[in-house]
């Protein structure tokens, strides 16, 4: 028995607003299988086959595209402009039917080699048919699982289109030059990590153009608030220098390392001078506390005034009595013997 040559072709059509309909497959189709309509393979007897299938289209769907794989027995049928495949949508009220409801399927191209996913349908399955078979009927699905065959690993996609299906996915912009520019706030705090907003790091000339560091003699006159704020200025300057130096090394920009190190050293000398001044201040405070403990004019108990001068002498009187005056403030002479008596004072 000579088997007829079969050709697969793809027919694509669409209905507009249909709920259910009938697909009429023309006389040349032997088998057909499609995404939208076909759930089983329709066997055709002989060359000429006509079959009517019920369409189950989604109600919410406005436009529904159908794709059918049609097996034809003769290649010349494929060359026809319109295959005798017809989709008719029948609704309960004929007035609601859209004019574009029934679109003819059109043959797009002919493929002599069927696609790989149709291979199982080409091979006739060796079916065992026994009258006493305990298996369920073939027309029933395996189970009533609606998600049967939907796999994220195999990227099958969903069975039904969802609301975001019409929106194309956003594509990443791989070229960084084509990306939109980010607007940076003028007063962003991270700007303080840079010497200027134009360049990521200083030039060697700019790094070299700095003054001397603060000396301890100058900082001794400053208050704690001044010294504290100067310390923070130094901290931020060191952060700037570190950021610029790292960026210069990363870019392999050239010279400037020695200048940045010199600038950093000047800042560190200032910080050291601040600590020196504060340490001196601390030790003088300790010494003053020791002296005040033995001073009768100073009251450290916290009750009443801390300082009560005893031998208060007016300046005018002092000038008049200068020639014959005794030492008015015998503080040091009184204190010193006591200090000498205490060991390690």
């Amino acid at each position, binding site marked *: 028995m000579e088997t007829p040559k079969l050709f697969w072709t793809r027919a694509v059509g669409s209905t507009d607003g249909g709920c259910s309909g009938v697909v009429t497959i023309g006389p040349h189709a032997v088998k057909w299988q499609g995404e939208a309509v076909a759930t089983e393979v329709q066997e055709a007897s002989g060359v000429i086959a006509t079959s009517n299938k019920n369409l189950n289209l989604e109600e919410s769907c406005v436009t529904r595209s159908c794709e059918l794989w049609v097996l034809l027995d003769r290649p010349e049928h494929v060359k026809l402009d319109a295959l005798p495949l017809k989709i008719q949508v029948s609704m309960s009220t004929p007035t609601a039917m859209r004019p574009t409801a029934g679109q003819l399927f059109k043959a797009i191209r002919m493929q002599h080699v069927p696609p790989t996913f149709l291979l199982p349908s080409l091979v006739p399955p060796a079916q065992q048919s026994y009258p006493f078979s305990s298996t369920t009927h073939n027309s029933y699905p395996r189970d009533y699982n609606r998600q049967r065959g939907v796999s994220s690993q195999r990227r099958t996609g969903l069975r039904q289109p969802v609301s975001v299906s019409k929106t194309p996915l956003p594509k990443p912009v791989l070229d*960084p030059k084509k990306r939109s*520019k*980010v*607007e*940076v*706030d003028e007063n*962003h*705090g*991270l700007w*303080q*990590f*840079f010497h*200027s*907003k*134009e*360049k*990521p790091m200083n*030039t*060697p*000339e700019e790094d070299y153009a700095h003054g001397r560091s603060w000396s301890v003699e100058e900082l001794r006159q400053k208050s704690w608030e001044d010294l*504290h704020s100067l*310390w*923070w200025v130094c*901290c*931020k300057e*060191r*952060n700037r*220098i*570190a*950021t610029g130096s*790292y*960026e*210069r090394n*990363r*870019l*392999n*920009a*050239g*010279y*400037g390392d020695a200048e940045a190190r010199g600038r950093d050293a000047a800042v560190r000398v200032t*910080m050291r001078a*601040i*600590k020196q001044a504060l340490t001196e201040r601390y030790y003088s405070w300790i010494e003053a506390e020791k002296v005040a403990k033995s001073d009768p004019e100073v009251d450290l108990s916290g009750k009443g005034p801390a300082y009560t001068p005893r031998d208060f002498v007016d300046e005018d009187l002092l000038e008049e009595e200068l020639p014959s005056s005794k030492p008015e403030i015998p503080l040091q002479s009184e204190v010193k013997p006591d200090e000498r008596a205490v060991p390690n004072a």
Partner: protein
Amino acid sequence: MASQSIARKAPRLGKKQIFMPNFTLTLLRTPQLPPTFASFIVPLNLNKLDLRDYLWNAYGIPVRGVRSYIQMQKIRQDKANAKRPSPRRWFRPRSIKKMMVEMEQPFVWPEEPENFDLWDKSTFDAAQKDREETESSFRPDYREKPASDRGSIAEQAKALLRGEEKWKPSLNDWEDDGDAVEVEQNVKI
């Protein structure tokens, strides 16, 4: 959630007062991160809460979250600042701690300069190349390698056979100066 996070002005800060911190932060250029992220090199003893409080108090940057990691460095022979690194004395440099910070406002670095003339890059590169060549001459296998300014012997021979070059004696070759002449003839021994 969003409205709450916007209404929150400052993060909850630590209460320990540190008056004179003595360390540096290095801000890193991270084009691979979103613009609301910033990355820093921080000292190893700094933790996430410290960085959050530091950025808020010193720079006024509200921080949503901090991520940190410590990058161990590769071992190398002898210390980096050794003048003549002695081999087989293995040394691992100190690890580098980096912290990534998520901010509320985006920040983008200033662009990289295209022209490095202000940094005198050409001189810098030339000096570096010269330094590397000098260093390579002190390596133990320097004599075994052909000199860089000389083509291979086979290429020279081929060029000689093709007639492109003429043979000439090398500099070490004996030069005939004539007979030897006694320099000091009037010396009395």
